[in-house]
């Protein structure tokens, strides 16, 4: 399956001025230039993704999750396993939303993005296993969206730039809506039972989880999110760096 790279070329002009407000680099070159190939850490031809424990690292990490989601939905639709018009409508919308999040985060990061979409290597058999039938697809969507919520929430207390925090908040509630929407399609409750969580109570980091249980979307550390992503077996790229250590 190919990643949808076309949206990169369609980057809206919205935002040179606004991006400068973020105190980041200019947009023009940012979308086109990646890290020089010679500097890339290579692992068997697959680029390792390195996330530092700072705002830029967190945004890059969020970008990775958005890329995975943005790749999943078009593949889910293309699988032909989803035939209900309402379900197709939802998955199409989610795919558009995630692509917009990718575009937004790449716009913010500019040349501080640590990988390009084309650097990501998907594990095709792993992905196919998630696309085997309708229930698998929709439940995987729930897993991805729930995980995205926990991941953004977990990153929220580490961000230092208030605009990044507000942007993360603006995105994460949409991910929560996605999770609830697909859960509803499946007849599952919109909120997450403890037993459904990929990180169990005992493993939740205490200082960022004053509240636990169904009424809360607990905060996962990036390291916990990496483990959860690994369990999905969809990404070949090694992940490292101080953020996920």
């Amino acid at each position, binding site marked *: 399956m190919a990643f949808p790279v076309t949206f990169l070329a369609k980057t809206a002009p*919205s935002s040179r001025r606004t*991006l400068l407000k973020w105190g980041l680099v200019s947009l023009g070159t940012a979308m086109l230039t990646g890290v020089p190939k010679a500097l890339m850490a290579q692992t068997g031809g697959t680029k390792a993704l390195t996330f530092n424990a700072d705002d830029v690292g967190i945004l890059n990490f969020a970008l990775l999750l958005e890329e995975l989601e943005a790749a999943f939905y078009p593949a889910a639709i293309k699988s032909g396993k989803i035939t209900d018009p309402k379900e197709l409508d939802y998955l199409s919308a989610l795919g558009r939303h995630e692509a*917009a999040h990718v575009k937004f985060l790449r716009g913010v990061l500019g040349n501080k993005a640590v990988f390009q979409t084309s650097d990501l290597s998907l594990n095709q058999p792993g992905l196919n296993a998630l696309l085997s039938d309708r229930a698998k697809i929709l439940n995987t969507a729930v897993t991805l969206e729930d995980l995205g919520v926990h991941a953004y*929430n977990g990153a929220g207390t580490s961000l230092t730039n208030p605009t990044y925090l507000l942007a993360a908040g603006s995105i994460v509630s949409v991910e929560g*809506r996605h999770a*609830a929407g697909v859960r509803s399609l499946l007849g599952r409750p919109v909120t997450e039972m403890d037993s459904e969580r990929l990180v169990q109570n005992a493993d939740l980091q205490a200082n960022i989880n004053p509240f636990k249980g*169904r*009424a809360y979307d607990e*905060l996962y550390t990036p390291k916990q999110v990496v483990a959860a992503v690994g369990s999905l077996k969809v990404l070949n790229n090694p992940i490292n760096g101080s953020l996920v250590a």
Partner: protein
Amino acid sequence: MKLCFNWMGQPMVTTALPNHRFFTLLLNQFNRILQHILAPAVSAVLILPLLLMSLFFAPTAPAYAQSATLSPRQVVEYALTLEKLEADFYRRAVAAAQNGPLASAPDVAKAALVSYGQDEAQHVTDLSAVLRSLGGNPDAVTIPANPNYQAILGRDPFANPTDLLQAGQFVEDLGVAAYKGQVQNLLAAGEAGKTVLAGALAIHTVEARHAAGIRFLRQTLLNADVRPWIRNASEVIYNENRGDSPIPFSTPEFDGYATREEVLALVGPILTAAQPSTMTPDQSVAPSSQPMRSTNPSPAVRGLW
């Protein structure tokens, strides 16, 4: 400043929208309250934006950030007020679903009301504990014994499933925006705000799940032209159009925020005594036991009405 004008201006230009009546009602009530506060009544139309600015908008506030800086304790008091209101709203909805006007609602909707109400009650319990740990008194954060829920739609929202779900959607979407509107205040508090920020984030997305769940029910059960996410800024009662922000809040892919002042202006009429002119005869038991404070509308009011 612009936020205020935008927000004040928006309801005036959305006359064709279904929530027009809600806006008008809220604005009328808010105007009335302010006029009451400021004895020599000046034209409310002219003075209201100026008042709001002078009262609430710190001159140093970033153009696209939130307005007044609240302490973590103030944020918790404010959040607790909203949660108490939400919990009360669902308690009444569940009661109406058991043997009242909502008894005919589908089971899936009834189950959602019960579940969401339990979540809000849990938020009240846990935020109360946090407030105590910050030296505050959760029992001093009160809502009226009989909130004026008619202010939401201009009629009893518990009378039928259609109105209940529409009102619930407005309330939950606003709740999401309200929590989002406090994250920068909590970040600004540094380490002192970290636990509250973590808790607020953990609640924030659950409110989004509730909002999405209600939206799904409206789409599925009532054929409403709505999705779990916000496709158009006109679907919500707060201002999603923040022109100065680099974040495209008004698009479906991003959710907007609301400042405390904006939320209180919207929620105030629910939390204050029903005005005689808006009451219907069968509403005679509704007046609040907690009249709006008639003096000192300064930020010292915090989450208390």
